[in-house]
Structure formats: C-alpha cells, structure tokens
C-alpha cells in the first residue's frame, strides 16, 4: 500500500482528535474534514490496489465512510470535544490495524482502538464486562505476538505466511482474541453491556471495526493454513451456534440498544461462519455481509440514538410507542436498514445471505441450517423492535418533535442508497470480494468437492 496515503488516512484523524480536544471549538467541522480526508485517501488506496489485495483498503474506506456519516449523524447534545476526539482516535487506530503488515503495529492499532472505552471522559461504561472483554482480547493477541517474537520469527505477516509461527499455542491465543473481541459465545455479553450502557454511536463504531473477522482473514488463515483447515469446522460450528444462541436470546430482550446489539452480534457471527466455511461462496458472502452488517447496524444505532435524543433515553420494546407518527422518515429509514440487515430482496444482504447460506450448507449440510434459522429469528426480532418503536398508538406525553433533520437525512439516505443500489447491482462488489475470497480459499488450500 502507498505509505504516504496510508499515513494521511491514519494521521489526519489523530491530529483532528488532538485539535478537537485542545481547541474545543467547531469540533464537528474538524471531525468532518478529517474523516473526509481519510475517505479520500482510502479511495485512492482502493483504486491503486489489485483486486485480490483490496480487502484492507476497502475496509479502510468503509470505516472512514462510517466515521464520516457518524460525525454528521451525532446529535448536537453528543457532539462534545471528548466524543469527537474519541471517535477520531478510534478511526485512526482502526485504520492503523487494517493497513499494517507488521504484527506489532497491528497490536498497537488493536489496543489503541480500545483505549477510549477505558476512560470515563471518553466512552467509559459502568459495566466491568466490556472493559474485561476488550482487555482480555488485547492480552490474548499480545501474548500470541509475544510468543511469535520469542520464537525468533519475523514480525511481518507476509514473511510469516504459511509458517505456523509459534504452533498451536499462538493459534489458540489468536482464536481466543477473535472470540473475545468479536463477541462469540460465551464471550458475547460484553457487547450488549457496552451497547446498553455506553455511548451508542462510538460503541457501534468499535463493534463495526469487526477486528475479530479481520484477524481471521488477515492473520489466522495466511499464517496457519493447515491448522485452520483442520480446526475451522469447529470454529464454524461455534460461530453458527453463536448466531442461533444470540438470535434466541434477542427474542425476549426489551431494551432497544441491547436488542440491536444482539441482532448485530448474531448477524456478524454469520460473517465468521462464512469465513470459516472454506468455500468461495461462503467467504465471498461473509465479506459482502461484513459491509452490509456494518452499514445497517450503524444506521440502526444512529437512528436509535436520534430517537433517544428526541423522546428520552427510556425507550423500550416492551410496548408500542407509536413514534412513527412523530418521525415518519426516521421510521422508513429504520425499516429499510432493519430489513437490509436480514436479507430483504433488493438490498445487498439478499445476495450476501444467499452466498452465505450456499457456502455454509455446502461445507456443513446439517449445521449450516442454523444460519437461515438464526437469520429468520433476527428478522422477527428486528421487525418487533421496529413495530414497538414506531407503530401503535401515539404517546400523548411527547411534544411535537422534529423528524430527520436535513443533515441526518443526507447521511441516512447515503446509507440506504449503499444497501439498495448495491443490492440491485451487486455484481461489482461481489466480484471484488470474490477475488479476495479466492485468496483466502487458496490460502486454506481446500477444494470442497461439489
């Protein structure tokens, strides 16, 4: 990757974070400009990268766009120097982890992205579980990289390819890092705690970094192809079981934020299941689904936060609130993102779900059935949330509130266009991801007979 462009993409948000915290003025404008620079730099990186190596720059572009959108979507109440600084810091750290080929820098990016969540003035949460989850995942990754360093190996991912550095101990630690960071069962509860008690948009950004899936695609598969080939079925079962477990768990959850986090977790477990399916269809589906889940969950969390700001933070899914009467456009945006998350035809997730189901059923004909079952349950849960929030009798306690403001409408429209336009013309994005999927599949050196 072009070093100077990468440095710009990473460095500018970090500078913006410092500037926002120091000057404490025009913070939204500063953050917007910084995220825009990151988007531009990442776009150039995507254009320069060959198709088979475009995953990292594509992820950088996606995350920069998410941050750009989040900056505009943030309610005025949330747009403090601390929040803006934290988001920009998170952006820089995440891009650092995506872009690097060096294990030490990857570890630094991984740890730095969690830092704002340990400080009260940034995104600190009351519950101990998010802090423990993030700390334990960082510790597992640090231990794995330390073991590789101790064994006298190089620190470059390219140099370590197919060499299984550190053997099973390192593999185990990397898998533990994935499970802890990605919120795979039984380490899933911290994500719901973070979403429930932390700031909505920064937590959604942290989760949508999908560092667990990135570690699988970027590190585990290239470094440990043989071990991965043997043990991926087990991991795949675990991911599918997680998708189902959390989908069932979501059925009785009434806190909108926790419910959304469960649905997002369950859908992103599908990403891991696809990556571990060892088929090009499954891996491509996972990579495309990665983009869909990220865009949709950011949109949903953003809308939920806007509703909280307008109607109070004690929203619940236990009764009908009828907010659609007050905010019909927010309701439409929510419905589209919700249905896009669970495979509505005409959205990109219809293609990604199709590929995921084909891939996982091909590699695991029986356990693969868990995936469509989990998706069906998630669809019911997300529609329940929509129905409870937006439909039903209008609450008389609320005064008249603004629907989506122009600034919010533009961002949400861009998100909707992303999932719908690529849903109608998926071949470009699927072909790009398919090229990267072939790289992953070739690394695993497995051809599942048809």
């Amino acid at each position: 990757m072009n070093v100077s462009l990468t440095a710009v993409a990473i460095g500018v948000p970090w500078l913006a974070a410092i500037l926002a915290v120091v000057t404490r003025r025009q913070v939204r404008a500063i953050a917007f400009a910084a995220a825009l620079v990151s988007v531009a730099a990442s776009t150039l990186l995507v254009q320069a990268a060959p198709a088979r190596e475009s995953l990292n720059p594509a992820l950088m572009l996606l995350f920069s766009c998410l941050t750009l959108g989040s900056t505009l979507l943030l309610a005025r109440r949330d747009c403090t120097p601390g929040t803006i600084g934290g988001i920009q810091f998170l952006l820089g750290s995440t891009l650092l982890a995506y872009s690097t080929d060096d294990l030490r820098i990857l570890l630094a990016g991984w740890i730095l992205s969690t830092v704002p969540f340990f400080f009260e003035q940034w995104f600190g949460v009351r519950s101990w579980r998010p802090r423990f989850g993030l700390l334990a995942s960082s510790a597992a990754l640090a231990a794995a990289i330390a073991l590789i360093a101790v064994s006298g190996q190089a620190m470059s991912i390219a140099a370590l390819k197919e060499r299984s550095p550190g053997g099973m101990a390192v593999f185990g630690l990397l898998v533990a890092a994935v499970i802890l960071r990605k919120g795979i069962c039984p380490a899933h509860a911290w994500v719901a705690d973070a979403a429930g008690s932390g700031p909505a948009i920064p937590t959604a950004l942290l989760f949508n970094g999908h560092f667990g899936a990135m570690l699988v695609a970027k590190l585990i598969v290239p470094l440990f192809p043989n071990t991965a080939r043997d043990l991926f079925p087990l991991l795949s079962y675990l991911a599918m079981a997680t998708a189902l477990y959390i989908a069932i768990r979501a059925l009785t959850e009434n806190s909108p934020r926790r419910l959304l986090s469960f649905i997002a977790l369950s859908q992103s477990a599908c990403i891991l299941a696809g990556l571990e399916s060892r088929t090009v269809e499954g891996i491509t589906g996972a990579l495309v689904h990665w983009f869909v889940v990220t865009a949709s969950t950011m949109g949903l969390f953003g809308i939920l936060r806007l509703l909280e700001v307008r109607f109070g933070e004690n929203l619940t899914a236990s009764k009908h609130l009828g907010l659609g009467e007050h905010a019909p456009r927010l309701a439409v945006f929510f419905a589209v993102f919700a249905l896009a998350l669970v495979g509505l035809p005409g959205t990109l997730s219809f293609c990604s779900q199709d590929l995921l189901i084909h891939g996982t059923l091909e590699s695991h004909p029986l356990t693969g059935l868990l995936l469509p079952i989990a998706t069906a349950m998630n669809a019911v849960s997300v529609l329940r949330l929509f129905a409870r929030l937006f439909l039903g009798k209008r609450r008389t306690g609320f005064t008249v509130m603004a629907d989506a403001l122009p600034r919010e409408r533009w961002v949400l429209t861009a998100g909707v266009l992303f999932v719908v336009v690529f849903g109608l013309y998926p071949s470009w994005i699927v072909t790009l991801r398919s090229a990267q999927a072939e790289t992953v599949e070739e690394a695993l050196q497995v051809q599942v007979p048809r």
Partner: protein
Amino acid sequence: MIEDYSQILLVFAVLAPGVLFVVLGVLWLLGWSPVERVISRLTGLTFTASIFALAAIVWKLAVTGTPAVIVTFGNWFTVRDYHFPLVLMADRLSLPFLGMTVVLAGLIGRFSATYLHRERGFLRFFLLLHLFAFGSLLAFAAGSFDLLAGGWEMVGITSVLLIAFFQQRTAPVENALRVFAVYRACDIGLLVAVFAIYNWAGTASFAGGLPVLSGSHATIVCLLLLLAASGKAAQVPFSGWLPRAMEGPTPSSAIFYGAISIHAGAYLLLRVQPIIGQSLLASAAVVTIGVLTAVHGTMSGRTSADAKTFLAYASLTQVGVVFVEIGMGWKWVAVVHILGHATVRTLQFLRAPSMLHDYHKMHSRVGGELAPTGKHLDTLLSDRTQMWLYRWSLDRGHLDTILDRWVIYPLMVVSRLFARLDDVGGVR
C-alpha cells in the same frame, strides 16, 4: 438478451409496478405528496398497459406455437461456479398467474381509490400494492428458483406491512408480526430447497426445463418446497395466521388472501409438479396436507363470527383442495380451479362490507331471518361429538394453541434462561 417485442413486453409487465413504486417512494422521501387522483390514474395506467402487454404475449404464443417467452439477462452475480441467473419466463403455467395478478391488482387499485378515499395511509397502501404486484409478477415470471425466492420474499414483506396498515392500533401490528414470523420460518424451506436443487442438479434455473432430480433428492426438495408453500398458503399446521391477517384493509385482504398470495404456494408446487410426481412420499404429503386443510378450513369457517374470517377460511378450504389436485397430478385442473377461485373470492371479499348491508336490507324486507335450507347432517352425530367438534372448530383446530404451547412458549423459556445466564455479573 432481448430480441423481439414479446420479450420487451414481458419485461415491461413485470417491472412496471416496481418502477412506479420506486418513483413514488423516492418522490415522497424528497417531500412530494401526490394527490389521490394522480396515484389512482398512474396505477390504472400501469396495470392496463400490463394487461395489454400480457395479452400480446398470449397472442404471440398462440399464433407461433412457441412454448414460452424467455428473457435472459445473464447472471446477477457470479462467484466462481455459482451463478444467480436473471431469467424471466412466461410459459403456459406462469401466464395465467401473471394475467391474474395484473387484472386483479388493477381492479383492486380502482376499487381502493374509492374505498380508501381520504384515508391517511392512501399513498402507503398504493406503494405497497405496487411492490406486492412487482413481487408477485417476479415470482410468477421467474425462470429460476433463486429469482422466484426474491419475489416470494417481497410478497411476504408487503403482506405483513399491509396487515399492519392501521398502525395506530396494537392488534394489527402484533398480528402482522406473528404472520411475519410464520412466513420467515417457512421460507427457510424455500432457501434450503434452492440450495439443494443447485447442489444436486447443478442449476437452479428451470427456464430450459426443470432440474433433474431423482430418488431421495426429489423427495427432500419437494418436502422443503412443501414447507414453504404451506406457510405461504396457510395450510395446516400453519393456518393460524390467516384470521390474523384479516386486520388489513379489505382490498388488501382480497388480493392477498383471496387471490394472489394465498395461491403463490400452489404455484410453487405446480412449478415442481413433475418432480413431486416422482416421489410417492411427497405426493402423499401434499395430498394429506391439502385434505387436512380443507377439512380444517370448512369446519373453522363455519364457526367464524365475522364475514372476512369466514371468507378467508372458505379460501383456505379451496386452496386445500387445490393442493390435493396437485398431489394427485391433476395440474391443469388445479390451474383452472385457482383462476376461478381467485376471481370469485376477490369479488366476495370486495363485496363483504356492502353484502352485510344487503343482508340486513333483505331480512328487513322479508320480515325476519331467511328460512334455513339444506339437511343438517350434523344431527347424525351425538351431542358430545357435536360439542367437541364445535369447540375444536371455534378454537380453529387448536393450531394456534399448539404453536403457542409447543413452539413459542418453549422458545421464550429458553430465551429467558439465556437472558438469566447473560445477566450473571452484568450491570443493567
């Protein structure tokens, strides 16, 4: 690709309602709210043009003796050996369904312009009507099971959104959610069947003839498709959602549960009827479900307290009989039955509100209730059996009770158990 006018007409007929949905929807999002007259005229024009387009296709097929009009757009997306083919097809099976959809959707559009006049959700209703018509046309004109699944899902979601049309009331919203849950559960059958067909036959396209399946493969695929068809057609044991779906406005009930949506399941089975015919088990399963549904429908309908639910159960009974016909291999009898039934039932649904008024008028003119007709064979049964049957029918075959007790309740118990496990050490 497109080579002659009949292909252009087929594409137009399928896409027209979808394009209108997108245009009206985007304009609304941009702040334009069209007046009722514009919406109803655009709807009328669209469906009238579609009717003429389909008529021209029928004419062409009749004159040239061509079996089908097929439009191939290549693959929607490709991943190594896996393709999602975009093929539209109008053949002797799909054309009657396509015709039925555009004619009835046009009629419903015309009727609704008056019926929903000054209703707050007027535009929303028409948007959903167009999306539904597009989904149905896509499902009926699909040349591959993948594309059929896309249209199928669209029909499902519009159906749910129309059940929740009167969104200020809690009951329609909750019933819509229940219907959605049943649809999604049964659609798993279709998704897995599409995968199985692709995996075993190497293609999910049927534009050049049905994929070849034999033995246990044929049976498994047929049973999976039967699950999907039963969910969409409200067959036993999934019939419980049908009375709940009557919460929607009458025109949508007419087109969904009297005509198009309720017969989509039968269309799916008709499409794979040659494969069903290969498997004795699948044929027997289709016939059994059809018989059980017909009996359930006629019994439950007789104890229904409102006209729409009574009509819905009457519809269910007929669709049960259609399933029997398909299971027995009487494909064209089933097609004719569907066309006749859909037309009559739509009329009955649309007449339901004014029919009650007419009955009251008639009763007042004859000076009381009309004399009962026919023999009451139920008197041949003992009082105890009659009472049991009455209670069974009144509770709609206990299907919802069974579903609640054996599926939903255990699922909720497990979910709450998981919640308690998650809460250990957590902070709310």
